Structures are given as C-alpha cells and as structure tokens.
C-alpha cells in the first residue's frame, strides 16, 4: 500500500516536472501578480475633482471657491461657465462633482438669511460619490462655524477665536492611516492562492480521462484513495512553496507585517490550500472534458471568491440568502483568519473555528472526489 502510494506520487511529480512551463508559472507568476496588483489596487478615494460654477461672483462666493482650492482631498477643479458645461463635464466623467453658487448667495449672507449652495455629484461610482458628499458637508460645516466666529464677530487674530462647539476626535485602531492596502493585501493573497491551487488540480483527473490514460490507472491495483492522495501531494508542495514566496513579497514590498504567529499562519494556509486542492479535484472528477472543468473552475471559484469572500465587499452588507452562500467559500474563512493574524495580531484562540471549518472542507471535498472515482471504477 505504502509502496503504491509512493509510486503514484512519483508519477505525478514526474508529470509536473515534464512540463516546466506549467511548473514555472505555478511557482513564480502568483508572486508577480501579487506585486503587480498590490501596487495597483486601492480603494482610497483621493483626487476628487470638483468644479465650481459661480453665478454670484461676490467676495463671499469667491471665498468659497478659494476654500475648495486649498483642501487636500480635492484636485483643483476648473471654474465652469454654464449649467450645460457642468452637466457635460459630469457625463463624460471629467468632474466628480460640481458646486453651484446661486446669484443671491452674497446678498443672502449679508442680510443674515441662510444662503444655500447646490452640489451636483456624479453618483455612478458610489464610493467616490459618498466620500465627496462627506467631505463637502464637513467643509461647509466648518465654514458655517467660521461664519459665526470670524465673519460675524471679526477679531484681530482671526482663526484663534475659532473653536467648534464639540471637538470630534476619531482614533483608528490597527490601521491608523486607513490605508486600504492593509485591508486588501490579505484578501489578495488568498485570492491568488485559491486560483492557482484550484487550477493546478482541476484538470488533473479529467485530463487522464480525456487522454484515455485513466483506463490504465483503473486497471492498476491502486485504490481510489491512493489516486487522490497521490494527485494532491505534489501540488500541495508546490502551493506551499508559492505561499511562502507570496507572504515574503507581501511583507517586504507592501510592509504588511505579520503581527501574529508565523507558524499559525502557515498552518492555516496549509488547511486552506488543502481545501482548494480538494475543490479542484472534485471539479475534475465531476466533468468529462478539460474545457468544462476550466469553465466550472472559473465560474465557481474566480468570481465568487473575489466578491463573496469578504475580500472587497463586507459580508455583513449582503442579504441573508447571499450570506448563507458565503459559508461555502473557503476563502471567507481564510481571509478572516489572515486578517486576524496579520493586522490584529490575534492568537490561536481566535482562529480555531476557521481552522476546523477548513479542515472539514478538505475532508469533504477530497472524500467525495475519491468516492466518485471509486464509483466510476466499479462501473467498469
């Protein structure tokens, strides 16, 4: 038995090494992708471009235009001439928002009435739109306060008299600069790991079927469990190596330090990879051609992992039935464990539920794969 397993593993390794292109891709490309994507992806909203349409041209309205110029959050927008021009700039995406100052703005302010301004926001990108709205609201709030202090009660030292009624002081834990990279890198690591692990095994069984070499394996005295284990181990070795490369790249290039224990991280990575390889093998035993294996793998892994795992979109925002589906995505557990270990420096206690679920996933997927192989062989 042991001898058979060893022979099977040796055959699989030999097959991997015979195709050095694939091996090279599996080992190096994931790390390259992490580097490329890690620098590219960010959800920080900066460079908001706001245009101003000043219909008043009074000293007061000019002061507001000036305020927009000095705020860091905004890229200096242009001054617009007409409402048509404003709308056009929003449609073609040149501006994210347009502030319209009405003709009676200065007069209203002089007279002590509440002047109003209009803000037109391009809502097609929700993230940018809600951030813009928040910034502009806060800015006008400050402005309102200043109006009450400096403008109404002019003093020699200007800003010195300006105190808000409540001093709101946010303090952020774990990711003080609110860099989205810190949040995204663990998810990106999981995403790349899932894809390479599932892809590496998704074709393994179906290829033998398509080429007709499956009959030879069927005729051999190997049990289906041996077959499955033999197909898993070489890719496990490769995937673990690749994971170490990725973690090193994440640490040194993006400064995502692992504040928790490294051995815990490697341990849960192992369980995660095992469940991914299991999914790949399961796909491979279900379909008849490599083409449909590929299709099934991308459809069930690539998009769902990206969107349903909590990598980008918070799971708590999803409707309950969709939340239920997320429990079937292994990356969901891995990402939350990874964030706990990497960002919050959590210990073994807080990641054991995830570890248990991932172990369960591996057992179920690998188990069903070997059962399916067994059924297939008995039919012959």
């Amino acid at each position: 038995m042991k001898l058979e397993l060893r022979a099977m593993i040796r055959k699989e390794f030999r097959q991997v090494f015979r195709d050095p292109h694939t091996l090279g891709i599996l080992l190096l490309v994931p790390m390259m992708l992490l580097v490329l994507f890690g620098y590219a992806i960010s959800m920080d909203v900066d460079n908001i471009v706001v245009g101003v349409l000043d219909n008043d041209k009074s000293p007061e309205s000019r002061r507001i235009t000036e305020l927009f110029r000095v705020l860091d959050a905004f890229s200096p927008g242009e001054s617009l001439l007409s409402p048509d021009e404003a709308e056009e700039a929003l449609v073609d995406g040149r501006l994210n928002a347009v502030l319209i100052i009405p003709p009676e703005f200065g007069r209203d302010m002089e007279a002590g009435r509440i002047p109003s301004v209009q803000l037109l926001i391009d809502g097609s990108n929700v993230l940018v739109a809600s951030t813009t709205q928040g910034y502009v609201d806060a800015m006008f709030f400050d402005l309102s306060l200043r109006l009450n202090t400096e403008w109404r009660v002019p003093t020699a030292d200007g800003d010195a008299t300006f105190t808000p009624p409540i001093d709101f002081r946010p303090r952020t834990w774990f990711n003080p600069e609110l860099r989205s990279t810190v949040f995204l890198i663990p998810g990106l690591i999981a995403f790349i790991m899932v894809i390479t692990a599932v892809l590496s095994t998704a074709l393994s069984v179906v290829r033998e079927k398509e080429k007709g070499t499956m009959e030879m394996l069927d005729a051999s005295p190997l049990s289906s469990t041996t077959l499955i284990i033999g197909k898993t181990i070489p890719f496990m070795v490769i995937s673990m190596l690749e994971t170490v490369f990725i973690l090193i790249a994440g640490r040194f290039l993006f400064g995502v330090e692992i504040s928790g224990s490294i051995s815990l991280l490697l341990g849960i990575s192992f369980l995660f990879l095992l469940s991914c390889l299991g999914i790949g093998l399961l796909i491979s035993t279900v379909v008849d051609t490599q083409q449909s294996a590929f299709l099934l793998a991308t459809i069930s892994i690539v998009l769902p992992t990206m969107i349903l795992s909590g990598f980008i979109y918070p799971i708590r925002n999803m409707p309950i039935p969709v939340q239920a589906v997320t429990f079937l995505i292994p990356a969901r557990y891995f990402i939350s464990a990874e964030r706990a270990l990497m960002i919050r420096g959590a210990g073994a206690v807080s990641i054991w539920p995830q570890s248990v679920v991932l172990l369960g996933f591996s057992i179920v997927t690998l188990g069903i794969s070997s059962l399916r192989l067994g059924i297939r062989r008995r039919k012959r």
Partner: protein
Amino acid sequence: MIGHMIKKEFRQLKRDKRMLPIVFIAPVFQLLLLGFAANLDPQNISLLICDLDRSPQSLELSQEIVASDYFIPVGTIYNLSEIAQEMERRKASATMIVPKGFGADLKAGRSPVIPYLVDGSDSTTAAIATGYAGNIVRRYGLKYLNADSLPPLRVDVQSRIFFNPALVSRDFMIPGLLALVLMVITLVLTSLAVVKEKELGTMEQLIVTPLSTADIIYGKLIPFAMIGVLDILLIMAASRLIFGLEIAGSFLLLFAFSLLFLFNTLGLGLLVSTFSGNQQQAMMASVLFVMLPMIMLSGFVFPVENMPAAIRVLTYAMPMRYYLVIVRGIYLKGAGMSELWEEGLAMLILGILITVISLLRFRKRLE
C-alpha cells in the same frame, strides 16, 4: 465549407453534457449572486456607545447617532475600562465615548472632546463611517453654539446626485458584471478550443481537409460568438427583470459595443491558444495573464485613476478597461456616441491587432 466546420463544433459542444448548462445558467446565476453581494455602502456599522456623562445632552447625542441609517447600536456601557472587552464581545467596529462633564462643558461653550474609536482594518467603511459620525456630532454641537443670542449662521448644502440618486453600489456593479461574465465565458471557451485539437491529435485531420486556415478559425469562433451574444442578451434581461436596472442610453449602441468587446475576447482566447502547448498551459495562461489582470486592473472594482503611472500604462492594452467605461456610461449616464467614440475606437484597434497577431501565429504553427 465553413458551415460543416461550425456544425462539427456545435456537435462537439453538445456532446459535452455539462458544458451547455454551465454556459447559459452560470451567467445569470453569477449576476444574481454577485449583484446582491457587491455592496460597499457603509451601513450596519455596529457602534458601541460609552456614556460616562449620563446627562440629557449625552443621551440626545446618542439618539442622533443611532437614528441615522449608518449605525446599528450594539449597546451602551458606562465604564471606560470595559471598552476593549465589550467591543470584542459585541463585535462592535466603532465606539463613541461621551466623556464626563460633556453636557456641562457643551452648555458653557468649553468645546468638549468626543473621542471616537474605530477598527480600521476595513479601511473603506471605516473612513466613510467616521466622516458620517463626525458630521452628526458636529451638527449636534451647532445647537449649542455660543454666538450672542442670534440664531447661528450657516450655509445649506443641497446635494443632488446624478445617475444613481440612491447611491446603490449594485447599480454601479451590474454593468461591470456584464463585462466580467462575458469576458470569462468567451475566454474560457476559445482559449482551449484550438489547443484541444492539438492535444488530442485531431488538428492533423482538420489540416488535411480542404478547409482553409480561415475556415478552421471562423468555424471554431462562430459558435462561441453566438454563445456570447446569447449571454449578452440573457444578462441584460436578467439585470432588467431581477434588479430593475434599465439602460439609460441606447440599447442598440450598447449591443454594438458589446459585439466589439466580444471580438476582442474571442481574439484573446485564440491568441492564448496559439501560445500554449496543452490545455493545462492554456488554462493557466488565460487565467493568470488575461483574466486576473483584466479583473484587477481594468477598473472593475479598483479605480484606474488611483493606480501608479507605470501600471496605468498597462491598462491601456486591456479591452475591458474601455468596455467598462462604455457599459457604465450607457447604463447609468445615458452616454452616447459623442462621449464614447474614443473608447470604441480603442477597442476596435485592439481587436484588430489581437486578431491579426493570433492569425499569424496560428498559420505559422500549422506550417
């Protein structure tokens, strides 16, 4: 002649019983799941309130915060030392602390401090939610502004949001999903098509037939193009029926641009196929070198404007970058040809380039 080739390909597709259901059911299923899931709107932020003051003012401020749509109160505690433990236990992602003497200070105009602690691991939500909390707190403070006896001066901001007034992220995501699903399906189908014949040794048989290279290629691609067109219509119908998302602009224009995009993705699949020795390589190459870069770098989730210049240059070579601008423009803003012709032209040029290169490589391989 080419008719026979197409018929053969269709027969091959039909023989694979798992394939056709996946090709038609999966896109709608994906749209359904992902359309409901892709939601970045900051909402349901669990907030813990630590009230050390227990004055009418502290109570009022807590109520103001809770009344907004963004926060879900997970409880109020009255002791500073419990914060860390309670945040963990009640899974709060933020805590607002109302210090002792808050009410008295506020009335006396002494500008009391409101510390607000937030878990920054989810940076996007944290940033937006902190902004909202700040605005609520400051607005509340305005009531106690100590400026004579006059009513406080202020400037009203009336925001009007264009194109997606309720700011539903779903409306932004769905057009993107159309692009994504289309790209994935057509790329998967074509990238293995040619290499498969090579791997199984049936390519030789095709070559000795009187079919020309062009016949072989078109015969392979036309069935996939037809599947692609059906998928476009299916996804558009599903977005309309399930999510109620209507096309603000012209349907025909969108359809025409979608065909152009299809031309690009089919070409890319063919290109991958000509570079690969076996199906495993073709799969790796199309996922790692085409699919993932297009998903991550074309602006589907992460804005292209935020990327470093070197990477932004790379995105110009991705047809999906242009197609995303087009679908979102037509779906949400009702943009027309005058706004989108540059993107269309870029896709046309890329498509021709990709097809020519892959035809040349294909021919070379045959010889």
